C-alpha cells in the first residue's frame, strides 16, 4: 500500500510551464486566424422583454460587415448549455437566439465584421424594439410569481427533475432518512437558522473565447476555452442540428475555468458565422460580458435545523434549500443536490436526516457550475449551524465535531440515495483522515477552546474559527474517461487523453501516472489531450474527476500496454507471453535467455520486422463505482476591527486528505488557490444588481477578488492517506479547498464579537452592523 513511488507523489514541473511564462501563443485568442471575422453580440438591456422587431439593415450595409444574425436566422431548438453527461439533468430551456430575452445580457443578435471596431459600430446600428415585461429579480418571490419566465411549450427536461416552469421552478428534490420531525422534537437542544449565500463570479483571468473555421474536409472546427470538449461537441451538434461527425472541438491552453467554462458559451455564435459565411470567426468576451453574460454561482437560502442531545450527540439534520438558477437552468438540480450530498454525510451518525427544496428561475444571469458546486453553499449553512450548536451546548466546536464526524470504515445512507440528478451509489469510506486533520489543524493554529478570542488593542479582536468539509471524486457511473497509449520509435510513448487541463496540470499528472504504471520516466511520455478528433472520450474537467476517473483510465491503458509489450516480445522471442517480464527498460524472459531493450524493440517493431511490423498500442477506460470523498479541516485566525467592521485573515490552516497526491506541489497549489477563492466569497465578492436587474458589479474595479496583500498567511498540509479505489491511492483535490472559509470565518467573527452573521459576504458594513446589533445595550 505505501510503496515507494518513482513518478507519483513527486513535485514534477508542469510540462507547459516555461512556455506559458515565456508568453508563447497558447490561448484561443492567440491562435485564432489573423483574418478571422470578429463577432460581437448584441445583448439585451432589459431583464425581461419580448423582441417586437429587429432592423439590422443599416448594420448589414456598413462596409466590412459580413453578416448580422438573430432569431430569424436560426432554427429554434431548445438545448442545454450545461457541460454534463447525457442525459443531462438540466432542463433544455435555452435557444441560441430567441424572441424573448430573460436577463440583462441575454443574446439578441450577432454581428460579424472584419475587425472589432467595425463590429462594435455595427452593433450600434441595429435597431431593436422591445416590449418590456415585468422582471422577477427576487428569488424568494420567484416561485408561483404571476410573471412566468419560461412559458414556451418547446422546453423540456430529459428525465423527471421536478421541472415546473409555469411555477418558475427549474427543478426540485426531496429525501428523508428516518423521521426528522420526531427526532427534532425529542432533541434536548435544537438550532434553527437560515443562511444566505450570494452569487459569485468565477473571474478566470482569460475571458471566454472561441474561434471556428471550416477545414479542408468542410467540417466545422471550433477551438474554444472550454472544460468539456466532448459535451460541447454533442450540445453544439444538437443546437445546430449537425451530425457530430461534422464537428471537431479542441481545447488549447485556457486561462482558468473554475466551472465557468463547464458550459457551452460563445461557441454557437462563432459557429453560426462560420457556417453562414464559410469564413473563420472568433468571439472574445469582454470582461464586462463575462460578468454579465456568462455564468455565476447559484445564490441560495438554506434553512437548517439541527437536533442534538445535551451530551453532544447530533441526532437530526434538516437542510432545506431555495436555489436561484437565474434565467436558464444549467446545473440547477445537480448543484442543489451536491449542497446536501457533499455536506450532510460529514455527520453520518444521525438518526434522521432530511434534504430538499426547489431551484427557481429569475431574470438574472444564469447560474451554472462553479468550484464547490453546491457543497460550498451547503457547507456555510451546515458548519455555521454546527458551531451554533456547539455554543448552545457550551462545547468546544472542535470537540463537538470530533464526536460526530464520519470516520474511516463507516458509511452514510445518503451516498446511496443522493447522486447527481438521480440516485447515487452505496459506498464505504475506505480512507478518511478527518481525525488527523482536526488534530493537526488545531495544533498548527493553536486552538484553545477557552481562548478563541483575544483583544489586541484599539478595538481590535483576534479570534479563531473552524469548519470541516468533504467533496467527491468524480460522479460514479456517470463520469467516464479514456486513454490511449502507443509506443513510438525511440522508446517513448504517446499518451492521448480526452481529459481537460485547465492549467491545473492534469496533462502532467496523468503522464506521471502512466509513467509509474509502465515503470518508465515521465520524460518518456508525451501528452496530447482534449481534441474530439484525436483523443479518446472524456467527460471533461469537473466534479473533481480528472485524477480519479481519467487517472484510473490511464492506469488501465498502461496495464494493457504492458500486456501488449510482453505479448509482442514473446512473439519475437518465440515463447509464451507469461514468460516475458518488463521492467520499464527491458523486455526479457525469466531465465535470461532472451532480452531486448525497449528502445531497440520500438525500432524493431516499427522498422525492421517485415511482415510482423506493427504499432504497439493499448487503450483503457474507467467509470467509477464510487466517489471517495476528499476531506479537510479548515482553521482560521482573524482580526476583527470593531471600529470599522473590517476583518483581516491572519492565518488559514488547511489540512487536507486527498488520498495520494500524484504531484505534491500541484495538489498543494489546488488547495491554496481554492482557499483564496473561498475567502473571496466569504469576505469580498458580491454580484450586485440594480432594481432593474442590471449588474452593477460588472468589472474588476467593483467586483473584488483577493489580491496578494489580502491574506497574510496560508498553511496547507496534506494528510498521509491512501484510497484503494483511486489511482495509486489518489482521490481528488480540485474543489475541496474552497469549501471551508465561509463558515470558518463567520464562526471566528462570532467567537470574536458574539455576532452571528448568516449572510455573505462579510464586508465591513455587514460586520459592523452585526457587531452593533449583538452588543448588549
Amino acid at each position, binding site marked *: 500500500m505505501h510503496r515507494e513511488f518513482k513518478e507519483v507523489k513527486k513535485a514534477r514541473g508542469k510540462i507547459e510551464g516555461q512556455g506559458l511564462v515565456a508568453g508563447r501563443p497558447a490561448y484561443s*485568442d492567440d491562435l485564432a486566424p489573423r483574418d478571422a471575422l470578429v463577432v460581437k453580440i448584441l445583448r439585451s438591456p432589459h431583464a425581461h422583454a419580448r423582441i417586437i422587431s429587429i432592423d439590422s439593415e443599416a448594420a448589414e450595409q456598413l462596409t466590412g460587415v459580413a453578416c448580422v444574425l438573430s432569431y430569424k436566422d436560426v432554427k429554434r431548438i431548445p438545448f442545454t448549455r450545461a457541460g454534463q453527461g447525457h442525459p443531462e439533468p438540466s432542463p433544455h430551456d435555452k435557444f441560441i437566439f430567441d424572441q424573448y430575452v430573460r436577463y440583462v445580457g441575454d443574446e439578441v443578435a450577432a454581428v460579424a465584421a472584419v475587425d472589432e471596431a467595425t463590429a462594435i459600430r455595427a452593433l450600434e446600428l441595429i435597431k431593436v424594439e422591445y416590449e418590456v415585461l415585468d422582471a422577477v429579480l427576487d428569488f424568494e418571490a420567484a416561485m408561483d410569481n404571476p410573471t412566468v419566465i419560461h412559458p414556451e411549450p418547446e422546453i423540456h427536461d430529459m428525465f423527471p427533475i421536478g421541472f415546473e416552469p409555469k411555477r418558475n421552478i427549474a427543478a426540485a428534490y426531496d429525501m428523508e432518512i428516518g423521521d426528522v420531525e420526531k427526532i427534532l422534537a425529542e432533541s434536548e437542544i435544537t438550532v434553527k437558522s437560515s443562511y444566505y449565500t450570494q452569487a459569485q463570479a468565477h473571474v478566470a483571468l482569460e475571458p471566454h473565447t472561441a474561434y471556428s473555421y471550416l477545414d479542408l474536409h468542410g467540417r466545422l472546427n471550433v477551438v474554444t476555452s472550454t472544460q468539456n470538449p466532448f459535451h460541447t461537441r454533442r450540445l453544439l451538434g444538437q443546437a445546430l442540428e449537425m451530425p457530430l461527425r461534422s464537428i471537431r472541438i479542441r481545447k488549447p491552453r485556457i486561462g*482558468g475555468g473554475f466551472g465557468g467554462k463547464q458550459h457551452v458559451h460563445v461557441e454557437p455564435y462563432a459557429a453560426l458565422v462560420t457556417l453562414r459565411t464559410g469564413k473563420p470567426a472568433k468571439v472574445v468576451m469582454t470582461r464586462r460580458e463575462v460578468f454579465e453574460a456568462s455564468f455565476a454561482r447559484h445564490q441560495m437560502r438554506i434553512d437548517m435545523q439541527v437536533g442534538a442531545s445535551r451530551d453532544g450527540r447530533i441526532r437530526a439534520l434538516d437542510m432545506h434549500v431555495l436555489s436561484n438558477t437565474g434565467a436558464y437552468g444549467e446545473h440547477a438540480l445537480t448543484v442543489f443536490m451536491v449542497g446536501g450530498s457533499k455536506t450532510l454525510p460529514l455527520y453520518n451518525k444521525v438518526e434522521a436526516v432530511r434534504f430538499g427544496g426547489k431551484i427557481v428561475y429569475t431574470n438574472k444571469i444564469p447560474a451554472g457550475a462553479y468550484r464547490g458546486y453546491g457543497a460550498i453553499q451547503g457547507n456555510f449553512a451546515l458548519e455555521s449551524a454546527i458551531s451554533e450548536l456547539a455554543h448552545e451546548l457550551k462545547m468546544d466546536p472542535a470537540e463537538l465535531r470530533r464526536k460526530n464526524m464520519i470516520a474511516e470504515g463507516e458509511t452514510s445512507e445518503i451516498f446511496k440515495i443522493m447522486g447527481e440528478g438521480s440516485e447515487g451509489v452505496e459506498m464505504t469510506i475506505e480512507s478518511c483522515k478527518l481525525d488527523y486533520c482536526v488534530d493537526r489543524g488545531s495544533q498548527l493554529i493553536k486552538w484553545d477552546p477557552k481562548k478563541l478570542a483575544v483583544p489586541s488593542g484599539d478595538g481590535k479582536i483576534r479570534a479563531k474559527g473552524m469548519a470541516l468539509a468533504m467533496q467527491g471524486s468524480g460522479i460514479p457511473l456517470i463520469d467516464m474517461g479514456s486513454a490511449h497509449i502507443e509506443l513510438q520509435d525511440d522508446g517513448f510513448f504517446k499518451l492521448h487523453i480526452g481529459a481537460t487541463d485547465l492549467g491545473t496540470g492534469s496533462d502532467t499528472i496523468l503522464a506521471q501516472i502512466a509513467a509509474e504504471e509502465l515503470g518508465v520516466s515521465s520524460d518518456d511520455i508525451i501528452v496530447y489531450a482534449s481534441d474530439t478528433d484525436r483523443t479518446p472520450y472524456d467527460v471533461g474537467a469537473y466534479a473533481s474527476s480528472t485524477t480519479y476517473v481519467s487517472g484510473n483510465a490511464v492506469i488501465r491503458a498502461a496495464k494493457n500496454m504492458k500486456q501488449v509489450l510482453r505479448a509482442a516480445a514473446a512473439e519475437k522471442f518465440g515463447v509464451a507471453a507469461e514468460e516475458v517480464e518488463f521492467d520499464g527498460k527491458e523486455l526479457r524472459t525469466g531465465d535470461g535467455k532472451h532480452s531486448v531493450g525497449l528502445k531497440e524493440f520500438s525500432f524493431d517493431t516499427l522498422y525492421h520486422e517485415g511482415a510482423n511490423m506493427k504499432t504497439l498500442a493499448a487503450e483503457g477506460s474507467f467509470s467509477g463505482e464510487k466517489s471517495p470523498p476528499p476531506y479537510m479541516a479548515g482553521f482560521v485566525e482573524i482580526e476583527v476591527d470593531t471600529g470599522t467592521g473590517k476583518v483581516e485573515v491572519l492565518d488559514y490552516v488547511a489540512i487536507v486528505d486527498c488520498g495520494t497526491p500524484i504531484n505534491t506541489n500541484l495538489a498543494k497549489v489546488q488547495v*491554496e488557490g481554492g482557499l483564496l477563492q473561498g475567502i473571496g466569497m466569504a469576505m469580498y465578492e458580491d454580484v450586485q444588481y440594480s432594481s432593474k436587474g442590471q449588474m452593477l458589479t460588472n468589472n474588476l474595479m467593483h467586483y473584488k477578488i483577493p489580491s496578494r496583500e489580502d491574506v497574510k498567511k496560508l498553511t496547507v498540509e496534506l494528510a498521509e492517506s491512501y484510497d484503494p479505489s483511486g489511482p495509486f491511492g489518489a482521490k481528488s483535490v480540485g474543489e475541496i479547498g474552497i469549501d471551508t472559509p465561509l463558515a470558518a470565518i463567520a464562526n471566528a467573527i462570532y467567537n470574536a464579537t458574539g455576532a452571528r452573521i448568516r449572510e455573505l459576504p462579510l464586508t465591513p458594513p455587514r460586520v459592523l452592523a452585526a457587531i452593533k446589533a449583538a452588543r448588549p445595550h
Partner: protein
Amino acid sequence: MRIQLNINGLEKQFDIEPGDMLVDTLRRAGYTEVKKGCDTGSCGVCTVLLDGTPILSCSYLSAKADGHSITTIRGLEKEAAEFGEFLVAEGADQCGFCAPGFALTVIAMKRELGSPGEEEIKHYLAGNLCRCSGYESQMRAIKKYLEATHA
C-alpha cells in the same frame, strides 16, 4: 496616425487610431504574450515595461507611447526562463494567463528594489492578480529566485 515604438529592441512603426490602447496595438502586431484580462486596469495581465517601468498597456494610449521603448516578456527571454524555473519548481505556473505580465513585474521589481522583503514583494506585485494559485506558491518561487540570483 503613425507612431514609432522600440519594441524589445526593434524599431517599429504602427498605424493606429488616436484612441487605441497600447495592448490592442501590440496584440494586433502579434505580441500575443501581452494579454487582455479586464478592460479596467485591475488585473495586471497586460503589463509591459515602458522605458523600463511597468505599466498597464490596457490603460495607456498608444499615441502617448510614441517614441518610447516597450519591453514585453519576449524581450526578456533569459530572465523569464530563469524566473520561470522557480515558478515551475513550485507548481506556481497554473493556467499561465497571469504569468507573462507577472514575470515582467517581478523582473522589474528586482531591478527597482533589489532584495525586497515579503511585505514589499506583496505590495509591489499587488496589481498582478492571480485566480488559480492563491499567491503562496508564487511567493515561494519569488523568494527562492531572489535569493538564488542575488549577486
